[in-house]
Every structure is written in structure tokens, then in C-alpha cells.
């Protein structure tokens, strides 16, 4: 439980961080909250030679609406997401998720950017980002880039971020009226990674027809998974119990869980099915309010 030797570098600005990364090369890792990286280092699963601490970079922690977008700075902590009045009022899906992520002391340090950039399908924020149709903003040697969420997750701990890139901001289409989201995960005990989790975001028009829908799944595939087949069934339709039932079944079918200590594959498929239905209903209820 003691990490191998490493060198610690503190970056005060984005520019400085990127320059450090360029100088130190591939053996350097960025660290923000550190709550994914440090446990891996303590178990010696990860042995980076250099840690570039980006947690103190100013101006990367914010939650604001600009134009049609909700913008969240990458260094915004989970706790800040939990207590932000605008998110509480208009994006309750964040409260649902953060409340189920780890424990308060981890949430005080863990950042939304780190949670996404880690590229772990067991983390909770990736499913939210998929459901909310987020765009990831990153900065690297070549300047700023904007990555649609569907292109972001590449594999187990692998993302579209290239060496030296820092995830700086998350952009989410601003919530419209008649829209609602919800997240839930089944966990074995408090603070556990999800046995399975489901994020849903729905936008209805004035007649209750589904204009936009996003469904993201947690920890039932190697890569954070969007339930596209389920979304297609609902998009452009009035959502009925029958349709919800159908999407639940599809979620159970399309998920790619493996049997492990969290349960058998069949159990997990069943959980995805059930939670998908429940989250669709909860999101609908919020959208109709």
C-alpha cells in the first residue's frame, strides 16, 4: 500500500502543466483529485515516474450557463456538483449520481474532469455525459479541441485524449423546459462501484412527444456505453409504459456485463433492464413537472 517512488510537480497554469508534460514525456501523469490514480499507485498497478498536479490550476472550477450551454470546469469537485443550486434545480441527475459516488471525503477531492478522463466504465460520470450529450473540451500542445462524447471513450482506461492533453471543460446543452434526467446505480454497499447503473435524459415537446433522449450505462461494458437502440425507440414518440418496457428489455440485451463478484451476467442484465425502466419513469416524471 505504498507507491513506488515518483517525482511530484505542481503546475500553476494550464500552460505550465502542458509544458511539463511535454518535457517529462510519457512517464508523466496528470493528477487532479487523485482518487482514481493514487489507489492504483498504492497497489503498484500504476507506477508513473512523474506526477503533474493540476489540482491547483486557477480558473478550472466553475459551473455556469453561457448561451445554450451549461459549462462545467474540469476541476469542479463532486461535492461542488452536489451542492450547486442551478444543478439542484435544473439538472437533478447530477445530484442523483454524486450522492451515489464513493463517500463524502472522496467527493471533496474527486473532480468531474478526472472522473471522465480516467476512462473507466465503472465511474458514474461517463454515463451521465453520454445521456446528456456532452462535449469534452481539452487543451494540449496543439491548442484547444472539442470532442463529442460519443467519440471520447475508446477502451478500458483509454480515451480520445492524447499525450499531454488536459480535459478542461464539459459542455452540456442547456436544459430546456419539459426536460428531465435521472441516474441510479445498484451497488453492493455504500460507496461501491456500480453493479449496474443507468443515466437517462429526456426532452419532451409541449405535446409530450420525446424530442431528445440519451441513455448511458455504467459498468456493464468495457467502455462506457450509450444505449442507442433504446434511444431510437423513444425518440419522436409519446413515451408509453409499453415502450419503456421494450427499452428495458433492450438495455438488458445490449449491455455487455460479465459475471464477477457483483453478480452473474444474467443478474446484471436483469438489473440493467429494471433500472433503465425506473430511470425512464423518473426522468419522465421530472420532465413533466
Amino acid at each position, binding site marked *: 500500500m505504498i507507491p513506488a517512488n515518483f517525482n511530484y510537480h505542481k503546475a500553476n497554469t494550464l500552460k505550465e502543466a502542458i509544458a511539463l508534460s511535454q518535457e517529462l514525456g510519457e512517464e508523466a501523469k496528470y493528477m487532479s483529485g487523485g482518487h482514481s490514480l493514487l489507489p492504483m499507485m498504492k497497489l503498484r498497478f500504476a507506477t508513473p515516474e512523474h506526477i503533474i498536479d493540476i489540482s491547483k490550476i486557477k480558473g478550472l472550477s466553475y459551473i455556469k450557463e453561457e448561451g445554450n450551454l451549461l459549462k462545467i470546469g474540469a476541476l469542479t469537485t463532486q461535492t461542488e456538483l452536489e451542492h450547486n443550486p442551478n444543478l439542484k434545480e435544473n439538472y437533478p441527475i447530477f445530484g442523483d449520481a454524486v450522492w451515489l459516488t464513493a463517500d463524502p471525503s472522496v467527493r471533496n477531492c474527486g473532480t468531474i474532469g478526472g472522473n471522465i478522463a480516467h476512462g473507466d466504465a465503472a465511474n458514474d460520470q461517463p454515463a451521465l455525459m453520454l445521456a446528456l450529450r456532452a462535449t469534452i473540451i481539452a487543451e494540449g500542445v496543439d491548442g484547444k479541441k472539442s470532442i463529442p462524447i460519443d467519440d471520447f471513450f475508446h477502451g478500458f482506461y483509454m480515451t480520445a485524449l492524447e499525450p499531454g492533453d488536459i480535459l478542461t471543460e464539459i459542455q452540456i446543452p442547456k436544459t430546456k423546459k419539459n426536460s428531465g434526467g435521472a441516474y441510479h446505480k445498484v451497488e453492493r454497499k455504500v*460507496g461501491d*462501484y456500480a453493479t449496474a447503473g443507468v443515466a437517462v435524459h429526456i426532452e419532451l415537446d409541449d405535446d409530450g412527444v420525446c424530442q431528445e433522449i440519451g441513455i448511458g450505462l455504467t459498468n456493464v461494458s468495457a467502455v462506457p456505453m450509450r444505449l442507442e437502440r433504446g434511444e431510437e425507440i423513444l425518440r419522436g414518440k409519446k413515451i408509453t409504459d409499453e415502450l419503456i418496457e421494450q427499452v428495458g428489455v433492450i438495455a438488458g440485451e445490449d449491455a455487455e456485463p460479465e459475471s464477477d463478484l457483483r453478480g452473474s451476467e444474467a443478474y446484471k442484465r436483469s438489473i440493467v433492464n429494471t433500472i433503465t425502466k425506473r430511470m425512464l419513469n423518473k426522468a419522465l416524471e421530472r420532465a413533466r413537472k
Partner: protein
Amino acid sequence: MFKCKTSPEVGGMGHSVKRKEDARFLHGKGKFTDDVKLPGMLHMVIVRSPYAYAKILSINKEKALAIDGVLAVITGEDLAQYNLHWMPTLLSDSQMVLPTDTVMHQSQEVCAVIATDRYIAVDGAEAVDVQYEPMKALVDPYKALDKDAPLLRPDKEGQKDNHIYHWERGERAKTDAAIAAADVVVKERIYLPRIHVASIETCGVVASYDKDTEKMLIYLTSQAPHAIRTILALVAGHVGLSEEKIRIIAPDIGGGFGGKVPVYPGYVIAIAASFLIGKPVKWIEDRSENLVNGFARDYHMDCELAATKDGKIQAFKVSTLADHGYTDSSANPSKYPTGMFSICTGSYDYEHAFAELDAVYTNKAPGGVAYRCSFRVTEAVHAIERMVDKLAAEIGKDPAQLRFENFIKKEQFPYASPLGWSYDSGDYKQTLEKAMDMIGYADYKKEQAEKRAQGKLMGIGICTFTEVVGAGPSKDFDILGIKMFDSAEIRVHPTGKALARFGTKSQGQGHETTYAQILAEELGIPYTDIEIDEGDTDTAPYGLGTYASRSTPTAGAAAAIAARKLRDKGKKIAAHLLEVSEEDIEWEVGKYFVKGAPEKSKTIQDVAFAAYTNFPEGMEPGFEATHYYDPPNLTFPNGAYICVVEVEEETGAIDVKRFVAIDDCGNIINPMIVEGQIHGGLTQGIAPAMYEGIVYDDEGNVLNGTLMDYLVPTAVESPHWETGHTITPSPHHPLGAKGVAESPTVGAPPAIANAIIDALYPLGIKHLDIPITPDKVWDAIQVAKAKA
């Protein structure tokens, strides 16, 4: 009800005074083994085996020794030069300190790195190159006795197979006959898996050998420092460690629960290293190491319960296969290799019982380490309480009613159980009635009927257990021949304040308060004026330590009797001071007075002062007393626990709606401390019932070796515990008290299991082994549905 004899200021029995030790613990000022820092102290880290069963081909120390600050890499070969590479276990088995050729379980100690700081030692451990030749591990205990099973312990003379021992109690033939003739027989194979102790503080040692004085000072996370000192003297006498030269200090301990009773190889290596190097050596387990050592349970129990068709129990039989891993490291009394398992006949009155057990070797960590189980009472109670519920379900009788009809009656005590115990006291009917009243049993039965009619799954589970704690009477109980008495030594100072020392060792139970309250009760000295000291073998009287809920039954009794000796001496002094004859002196808490003239009196403080300043001619000065208490019997606390659950069929999710625990531990010394022990124990009861259990794969790898996957429940998982008590004093304990701390760990798992299985019964599910997790429930529901 118990009536307090002392004022709250004196704080004798029955007062919920705050714990004296909490000020330092709550301020983070406890002094634990890892807080010990000695000049020149070195640090040790252990290299452990990735394989469950493998030959060691080579251990290359070179790279490790090349690291600046690494001083030594100690291997089994090194220890073999001093014949310290093996050590005996408490039950005449043997355990490797470090292997010379073969590793027998995953995470076994392979060698140890000594360095100038812990970080360097960890790097050194990483740099040691060990080459293994893995062998096919024996993981399933049922295969251990197969003809083609590998012989795991060829090192043991005469060992022809993997069978360790056979044990039995009771009458096999009569029990079999009763079962054969019975109207109803219910059978079940019940498994209690291995679980971790998972105390907040891991195990550790600081060993400091002084070559000049030849004294070995050892700070140790030990529940039984005196016994460990004797064992060390026996094991290491040949290298010159003599018992008077060994001083063990057990500082504050952050939870023991049985896991800090054994001698771990890490202790011995650190002690040997300090002896050889002549410098202090510290070894503190990290969390991962703690989670791969020290396992409890692992009993596979084939149970048969026979009864008449209307539910009168006639006979109980249980045949157990015990998986002891590669060595039997049980810390049981020597005549009780299976601990108190023969309490398995439970709280019920019937004639015939038979229990047998076969212990086998497998490629797992040393088995039999206790976990808050009162020496295997957890296993015994789980067996009988599951079977009683199964019988009730089988014949369609309310499980509470079935219990009432079979309970040992109040007037039957002392009750001779069919497997040889003499239960001291109890009023099982009253205890269960109180639990049923408190939870509203009848209303829940009604609600359950309604819910079942709607297709909802709701269950009510009962456990009415009898515990057996306070080992034990010298005629039957010893560890390595040392009888299981315990001790108290009281010194009252001239100013009337006191110091009392004990052979036990608190690990969080609150001895500094409880013992002070016992002395306050007996002497009338305020509990705040009494300092309690334990754990230092140079100063404390000899005792067998704290485990299996034995401290109040043994050392608590010793305290009371030592105090009474002091009171007798005090009477003589009081008579001298008041110038009357001893016969004319009477005692009431805290003072002596002249019979018929209560205004003529001397306080215990006056008497203490006189014992040093103005004692009668010919009297030995001083005001001290010591007692070594050899209990005439064990104490038999009991309890009635009722649990109500709802299960969601779609997800298998289990919601514990209510949990009522009524305990009877006789007279209560500090009700708040007892309630705290019950709360902790209930949480440690829901743990194996719903969350915890070591999972092995076919290669003997532990699959849940971190707290991420080994699910220790938190406050969030714990239901609201509702507690209460009945009081049936122990007739033989000087204070009428019984042990209590393990009752909830023993009683909660079957109550929860019974409730969940009761909820699932309409689906045709008649048994599930613990831990009963949502995915296990969901899987069982699918199987049941497929059958239906």
C-alpha cells in the same frame, strides 16, 4: 430489575457512566503499537506468495540488498539456522514462520526485508526475486480426503492423508435411532464461509532486544500478552529468550475480535530480527496483508433435526467438515478442538444429540482464527437456529410458537444439556416474549399474510440463542496446559485512590471503565479514582487475556473477590480506628460503621490511609489484594432476536425493516457499554449474514482481498438496532454477571437468514447460505421459478 447500590458519583454497577478511556481515543491520543517509535528502529516488510501452493525454487536477495537502506532479507533458510523456521500452533499443529521449500497458501510469508524506513522496505520487498514452481492447489475440503489428493503436510510425522482430527460428542446410536423413528426430520447442509476480522487497527509488533541486559521488550497487538510471553519462552528458549527476560506490552488496541489472539509469523520474524541485529524492529501489517490473514469459520455442517409431527424436538445431529487451511491455528482451549461447538443443541429441551467434526487441510491460510464467535458458538447457533426455523416451516407452525413449546423452562436450571454443558440460568420464554412485544410480532404476522396475498415477499426471522462464555473452570479449560483463570490485583493508595491491574486486555470493550465500576461497587471508591492497567507482562498479574467474552466472567469476578478481601482487611482497621471489636462493624457501600451507631463511621478512604499510617498492631501494613479467579462454571447468556425484512422479487434487494435484540447477560455493570457492544456486534452480525465472505477461485486465489470487494458494512447498511434486556443473574458469578459482547454476533446472522428465507419461502426457497446477497437471492428466485 437491577437496582443501583451506589450513587452516580461513585458509579458502581448499573450506572451508564461515560467511558474513561474515550477522552484519549476521541481526541486521537490513543497510543497504539504503530505509535511506538524507538531510537534506531528498523522497519520490516514481508514478501508474500502469489500462489496458493508452490515450490520455492530460489530467492534472490541481490537487487533488494542493493537498495540504499535495505539491511537484510530474512528467509526460511536463515531462520532454520536457529531452528526458528517453524512454530507450534496452540492445538499441537505446526506453522511455518518462513518456508524453506514450499508455500502452502496464497499470501503466505516468503521472506522479510529489513530496512531503515518503511518506504525503503517496501521497495526492497518489491525487488526480491522469488522463483516458484506452482502446483495444483487443493481448495475444496471435500476433495481433501480423496485418494488422489496431494498430501499437503508430509512434514508431519505419521501424516498419511489430509485429515487432521476427528471429534465427537454425544450418543451417535441413540441419536440416529431417535431420528429414524421420528415423525418429521429436516435436513440441511449449512455452510459458514471464511470471514475477516477486519479490525480498524491491523496487527503489528515492535521488538527491541537489548544485548546488554538481554531483555526483549515487545510491543504487540495482543489480546493475550501473558500467554504469548509464555509461548515465546517455550518456542525461543533454545536461543536464549527466557521468560523473565521477555516483557510484552500490549498498548491500546484498535479492535481485536479474536484476530489478535494468535502468534503470527510476522511477529516471530521481527522478534528474531531484533534479537539478531540488536536493534528495534517494527512490523505493522498493511491493510491488504490484514485482509489475507486471520480467517474465521469455514464449517460445512450437515444437520438433521427430528421432531414429532406437532413439533416437539426429539433429536439433533450435526456432522461437520472443517476447512483448516494448511494448519490448524485455532486458539481454543486444548480439550476443546472445536471450541464450544457442542452448545449446538441450543435453547431447547430434548434428549438426544450427537455432534461430530472432521478437520482437514487445504491450501488456504491457517484456519480456525476466531472472529467474535465465543469459540465456534456462531457456527453452532447458526446450525440449530436455522434448523428450528426449517422445522417450523416444514410442519407449518409459527416459529415463535415452536420455540415456546421446546424451550428449556426457567425451573429446569441448572440444565444439563445432552452434549454435556450445565446451563447456569435463563428465562427464555420471558426473553422471547419481550422481543415479540417490542417488535409487535402479531401485527407483523398479519401484515405478512396480507403482503403474501398481494404477491409481495416479506419475512420474519427469529433467533433464540444460548451463548456459552467465560472460559473457564480449571478442571476442563487450559491453553497449552495453562489453566484459564484470570486475575486482578488492587492497590489502594494512602489517599484512598486506587490502581488495579488485570490479566486481561481491552481492545475497545471499555475495561478501564467497567473494572473501575466493579471496584466502585465493591469498595465504594468512586470509579473516577481508580486507575485500570492491563497489558504489560512486567506489571500485570498473569492472566489468559481477553477473548470469547471472558473478561467479566473471569477477571471481573477476580476484581470483585479481591475487593472483598480488601473489605475484610478494612473491617479490622475500621474496628481499630473506631475502638470496637470487629464483630461490631458493619459495611455499607463506601463506609464502615458501628452496629447500632451509624454516626460512628470511617470511610474506605479513612481506612486506606490508616492501612499505611495507623494500622492495628501485628497487622501487615498496606491496602492491597490480589485474586486469581478459577470460575466454577461458564456463564450462559441468552437472547431473542427478531428481524423483519422485505425482499424485492425483481432485483433481489433486501430491506431490513426492523431488528429487535433482547439480550440477557445477567446483572449489567454499565448498560451503555453493554448496549454499545450489542450495537457493534449486531453490525458484525449483519456483516456475514448479508455482505461478508471470502471468495476463493479454483486455484486458491482470494478474489476479494481488498475493502473494495470485501464488503464491511457501514452505518448506511446497518438497520436501526432496537435493543432491550431481561435480567437473569448468573447464580455462580460473584456479581451475577455474564459475558455479553459476542451474543449479537452469534445471534444476528440466523435471525437475518431466517427472515430472508421466510420471505422467499412462498417461492419454494427453503434455504440459502450466508452471506445472502441480492444477486444470490435473484439467482435463487430464477432457479425456483424455473422449477415451478
